[in-house]
C-alpha cells in the first residue's frame, strides 16, 4: 500500500480545473475495470473499455475540463462507461454465432438489473471517493500525522511500534488516527457535493 502526493483528481474536476488524460487514466482505470466486471466483460474487453472511455472523454485531445452544467461528474462517467460496456457486449455478440442476435441497450434491461447495476456503481464510486479522499488527506495534514495514521490504522502496525518509530506517545498515535478519520470524512463529504 503506497500513497501518492498528488491532489485528488476528483477535487480538480469539481473545481473545473483542466485534467490530463494521463492523470485520468492513472486514477480512473481501476474504477473502469471494476465497472467492466459488473457487465461480465472479459479481461481484454475491460482493457478495451478503459481505452474507449478515455478516448471518448478526451476526444483525441490530451486535456479535458469538465463542464459542471452537465451535472455530477459521477453520473456523466457512469453513463459513458455503461454505454461503452454495452457496446462491447454487443460487439461480442455480433462476433459470435448465436441465435440471440437482437441488439440491446441499457434501456431494454429489466428494472431489477438496472437497479443492481446502479447499486454496484454507487458502491464502486464510494470506494473511489475513499481512495481519492485518502490522497487529498495526505496533502491536508502534517506528514507525521499521516504517517502515524497510515502505519497504525492502515498497515496494522502495533501502536507501541508506531509511537517508538515516530518518537511520539501512543496517545498521539490515537489522536492522529482520530483526526485523520474526521478530516477524511469531511473530505469525502466535500467530494460528494
Amino acid at each position, binding site marked *: *500500500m*503506497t500513497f*501518492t502526493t498528488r491532489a485528488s483528481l476528483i477535487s480538480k474536476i469539481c473545481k473545473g480545473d483542466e485534467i490530463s*488524460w*494521463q492523470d485520468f*487514466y*492513472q*486514477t480512473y*482505470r*481501476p*474504477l473502469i475495470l*471494476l465497472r467492466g466486471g459488473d457487465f461480465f466483460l472479459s*479481461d481484454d474487453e475491460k*482493457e478495451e473499455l*478503459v*481505452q474507449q472511455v*478515455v*478516448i471518448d472523454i*478526451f476526444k*483525441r*485531445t*490530451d486535456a479535458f475540463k469538465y463542464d459542471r452544467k452537465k451535472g455530477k461528474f459521477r453520473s456523466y462517467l457512469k453513463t459513458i462507461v455503461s454505454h461503452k460496456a454495452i457496446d462491447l457486449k454487443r460487439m461480442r455478440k455480433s462476433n459470435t454465432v448465436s441465435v440471440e442476435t437482437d441488439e440491446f441497450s441499457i434501456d431494454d434491461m429489466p428494472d431489477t438489473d438496472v437497479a443492481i447495476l446502479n447499486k454496484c456503481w454507487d458502491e464502486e464510486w*464510494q*470506494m*473511489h471517493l*475513499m*481512495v481519492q479522499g*485518502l490522497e487529498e488527506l495526505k496533502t491536508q495534514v502534517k506528514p507525521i500525522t499521516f504517517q502515524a495514521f497510515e502505519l497504525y*490504522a*492502515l498497515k496494522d502496525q502495533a*501502536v507501541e511500534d508506531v509511537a517508538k518509530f515516530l518518537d511520539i506517545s*501512543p*496517545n498521539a498515535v*490515537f*489522536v492522529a*488516527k*482520530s483526526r485523520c*478519520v474526521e478530516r*477524511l*470524512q469531511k473530505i469525502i463529504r466535500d467530494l460528494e457535493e
Partner: protein
Amino acid sequence: MKHYTLEELNVYNTDKMSLTAKMECSTHLSNCSECNALLAQIKAHERLIAQLKKSWATLDSSHVDERWEQSYNQLSKILK
C-alpha cells in the same frame, strides 16, 4: 467521575486490556454517557478504516503491470 482517555478506550476497543481493567472499564461505561459516546466514535472510525482498506485494496491505482503499460502506450499514440 474520572473519565477514560482516548488511548484507554482505543486499547479497550482492540481487546488488549487486562481482564481486570476491562471489567472496570465496562462497569464505568455502563454508567457514563460521555465515555460511551467516545467509544462509539472510535468504533465508527474503525468501520470507516475497514472500508478504506477494502477500497484501497480494490482500487489501488499505483499498480503498474504489462497491461497497464500496453494500454497507456496505445492511448499515447491516439491522444496526441
